[in-house]
């Protein structure tokens, strides 16, 4: 399997461990990643507040590049995933819009490229099976909760998540690794998102409460699949000593990939694994 890889801005900055662990896990699973040349920012959670045209245009350009590569997109950042899928849906359903962008980019835009987040790929039966075959380190003592946040889930017409109030994609992968996954009620609640930059008190309020709730559920850690969720829960939990793992880090660690130690080193709350 081969993907047009769209890492996004966070993965080459504050969440490099997500990028590195994802690449390592893909290699182990036999998935090939070809980075989209000259990819650009999707607009994240900010651009839609200023302009609706740019909200479609910025991710559309990445979509077009993947179309030229003839490969489906793999987008590990929740915002990139949502924004590219939103642009794709808008373009696919609106011929006028498609024509407008075809002429803007001087290309014949089809907008049929599929857009995946690695959760959607790794939770497919074939990769669940392959993951189980790759297990070298047993994690059966680990009790965790899975946390999705917003952009992997809402709006469900765009994300096409299994259940917008109680998703299970991440749980399936974690359970395949033998991890004890605890059910909890907060998996799709907001962490505060980009408020960390200007109104950190809002993020502190939401993220601290999420970590408290995870602790009350009996979890020793939280698994996430979004760079902003990881940063907020890790930075703003206030002395609760709760490690926040990327699902790819746990996969990689369980597959016995040695670099896992370096991924964990970058966490604010250092995981006890490794």
């Amino acid at each position, binding site marked *: 399997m081969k993907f047009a890889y769209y890492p996004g801005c966070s993965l080459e*900055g504050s969440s490099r461990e997500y990028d590195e662990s994802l690449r390592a896990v893909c290699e182990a699973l036999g998935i090939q990643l070809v980075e989209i040349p000259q990819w650009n920012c999707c607009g994240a959670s900010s651009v839609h507040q*200023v302009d609706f045209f740019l909200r479609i*245009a910025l991710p559309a350009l990445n979509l077009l590049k993947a179309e030229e590569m003839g490969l489906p997109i793999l987008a590990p950042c929740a915002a990139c995933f949502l924004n590219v899928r939103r642009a794709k849906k808008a373009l696919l359903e609106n011929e006028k819009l498609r024509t407008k962008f075809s002429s803007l980019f001087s290309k014949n835009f089809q907008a049929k490229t599929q857009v995946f987040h690695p959760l959607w790929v790794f939770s497919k039966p074939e990769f669940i099976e392959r993951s189980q075959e790759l297990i070298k380190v047993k994690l059966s003592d680990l009790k965790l909760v899975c946390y999705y946040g917003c952009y992997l889930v*809402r709006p469900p017409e765009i994300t096409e998540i299994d259940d917008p109030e109680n998703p299970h994609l991440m749980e399936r992968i974690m359970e395949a690794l033998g991890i004890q996954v605890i059910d909890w009620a907060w998996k799709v609640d907001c962490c505060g998102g980009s408020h960390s930059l200007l*109104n950190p008190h*809002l993020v502190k309020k939401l993220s601290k409460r999420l970590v408290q709730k995870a602790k009350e559920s009996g979890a020793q850690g939280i698994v996430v699949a979004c760079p902003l969720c990881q940063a907020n829960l890790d930075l703003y939990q206030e002395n609760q000593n709760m490690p926040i793992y990327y699902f790819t880090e746990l996969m990689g660690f369980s597959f016995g990939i040695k670099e896992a130690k370096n991924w964990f080193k970058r966490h604010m709350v250092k995981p006890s694994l490794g």
Partner: protein
Amino acid sequence: MFLKEALPELFKCYQCLSCTLGCPLAEEMDFKPHQLVNLLILGKDKEVLNSLTPWICASCESCEVRCPNGVPLSELMDRIRQRALKEKIYKGKGFSLPLIFLKEIKKRGRIHEISLILGLKRLVGFRVSMEELRMGLKMFLKGKLRIRPPKRVSSESFKRIFEEVSF
């Protein structure tokens, strides 16, 4: 033009409060989401544009998913923000992020986190709390902050996107 004219679905609201009850930040807002909808229906755009609510909203979209009448609350928040920015009504600090974010994208094509933070500080002031300083230092030591900016995206198509807009 009233904001409600762009959003005819607003009139389906029967004030059930599903939006406000599910909103993680409702208690921080001056007008709760359902009140904002009501004000828009009444044509009280001035109150809405001067409200802090759109800048407290984290765009988590819980409200919209749970609305039984399909009121597009996230689009509504965006339209209020866009209008406020256009009319230069700057409330709280929240307004500065989308402006600086867009400026950074236009400049580089990608977000360089340190440049983004510096850009924001330039707009809202450089005062930093001890806590922020400690956090920044820890992030730096952990290798979380990338010093070197990413390579600029310079394709013709990328430039063409920004020729279409006035930002």
